């Protein structure tokens, strides 16, 4: 009897595991089957590199949105990565473990705040600040980068903490025994040893930044153009899909699915590189 129930449980878990996989597969097949015909008909080059996005006139060029997505993501990384890694180093190396055990879950709670709330704070607090002190309409590339930079902190901090904690104690002890200060140990021993884990955390955070939609729609202003400065409004790929999906029919709808294909490919590349970096770390040890 116990053997039997074990078998049933095993089969059940297998089915559950494969259901997640098949859901992913279904999504991929659906998006690609909807988007690819459009790309073939319209031309990949024209679709990716034309700056004209005017669905009513049959013009579907997503280049400004590709550029904007990259800028917003880079901006978010520039803000989130240094803060996140510094935070992780501080929590692991410079405060007692008990303090870390309180602060780390608190930071992870940040990940649970719905993105509309971040967007709302962005619109109500951040945008007016930018408009009054730096100029421009406030809803801008800069506002998007700052909000996203904060939203990715939990990802970077918790994965970085895990990889810094995984550095063997003997490394630090060796360094300290040689007379290095705590900071020298962190800089020359701990961080290089945890490098691949930290890199993976940053890549995963980048995936989150690219995929974020709600907060970005609220704070970036959504103009379709290549930004000339950080204070100008921009529209990202995800925002484009979410904004226009409700009205789109025919070619327009297919074009939005094709935009989804582009996003899907980008996020796949990021995830594969993240898991590649992670595997490197395991292989080396």
């Amino acid at each position, binding site marked *: 009897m116990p053997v039997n129930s074990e078998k049933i449980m095993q089969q059940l878990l297998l089915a559950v595991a494969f259901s997640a996989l098949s859901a992913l597969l279904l999504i991929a097949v659906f998006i690609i089957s909807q988007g690819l015909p459009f790309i073939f008909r319209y031309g990949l080059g024209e679709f990716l590199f034309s700056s004209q996005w*005017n669905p*009513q006139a049959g013009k579907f060029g997503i280049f400004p949105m590709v550029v904007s997505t990259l800028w917003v993501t880079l901006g978010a990384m520039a803000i989130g990565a240094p803060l996140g890694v510094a935070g992780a180093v501080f929590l692991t190396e410079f405060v007692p473990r008990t303090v870390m055990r309180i602060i780390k879950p608190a930071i992870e709670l940040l990940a649970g705040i719905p993105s509309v709330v971040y967007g709302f704070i962005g*619109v109500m607090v951040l*945008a007016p600040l930018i408009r009054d002190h730096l100029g421009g309409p406030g809803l801008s590339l800069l506002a998007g980068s700052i909000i996203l930079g904060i939203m990715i902190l939990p990802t970077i901090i918790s994965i970085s903490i895990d990889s810094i904690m995984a550095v063997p104690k003997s490394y630090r002890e060796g360094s300290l025994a040689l007379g290095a200060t705590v900071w020298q140990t962190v800089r020359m021993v701990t961080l290089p040893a945890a490098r691949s884990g930290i890199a993976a955390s940053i890549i995963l955070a980048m995936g989150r930044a690219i995929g974020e939609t709600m907060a970005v729609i609220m704070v970036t202003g959504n103009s*379709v153009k290549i930004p000339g400065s950080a204070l100008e409004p921009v529209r990202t790929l995800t925002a484009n899909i979410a904004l226009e999906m409700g*009205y789109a029919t025919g070619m327009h709808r297919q074009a939005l699915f094709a935009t989804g294909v582009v996003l899907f490919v980008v996020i796949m590349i990021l995830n594969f590189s993240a898991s590649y970096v992670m595997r490197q770390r395991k292989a080396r040890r």
Partner: protein
Amino acid sequence: MIKLLRSPLMVLVTAVLILGCGKNKQSITLAGSTAFQPFAEKLAEQYMAANPGASITVQGGGSAVGIQSALSGAAQIGMADLVNLPPEARELNATIVARDGIAVVINPANKVKDLTLDQLRDIFNGKIKNWKAVGGADKDITVVSREAGSGTRTSFEEIVTGIDLSGNALIQDSNGTIRETVANDAGAIGYLSHGLLNEKIKAVLLDGQECTTEKIMAQKYKLVRPIFLLTKAQPGAEVQSVIDYILSAEGQQTIQQNGLIPAK
């Protein structure tokens, strides 16, 4: 995705209908314009209270969805709020059941009171960039518009004519977010449904005309769009009676009480 979400719901609704009340109820679906959706829901409630045998479902989705679902038969009645219906809607019966004014709004801190259609066009084209050019303070204009395909935007651009929206325009995805943006930015200008005006924003006079129910009914205020109900060539008796109810004095009163302008 909306379809996927809707289908289990439909199954549930159908199941409840079949199991719950053995006698067959007439079921009519209205779909489309999000601007008219809340009014349609209210009217459907009233109609169902008066006719216990009827069952009306109201769905949103936007004017394009309204036209498509009326054509495909997914909904018996499509709702659309466009100045000119697209060519594919020509084979449908269109009835105007209400009108909706589009108010041009600015921040209350802005001292500009009156704009002409020509000035409005140049502002949205990006030719006029500073409020000084239209009698305001020396301040940059922030143009706020809706996304491509929006019924409000399509109507606005068709009435003002000649708008090739400036690349610097902010795009917001609903009447509500347009209102927030304009309320928060002293240099902003946007447009929204006249029923959604409040004290946080200020409507400007357009060619000297105020955006009010009276001016719209007297056809003095120019930015007005009709709200259409679309049916296939020969609507059934039940469908016709729903439309008749919306056009009746009681239906039109409900429309007016809730901020739209009655058709008659």
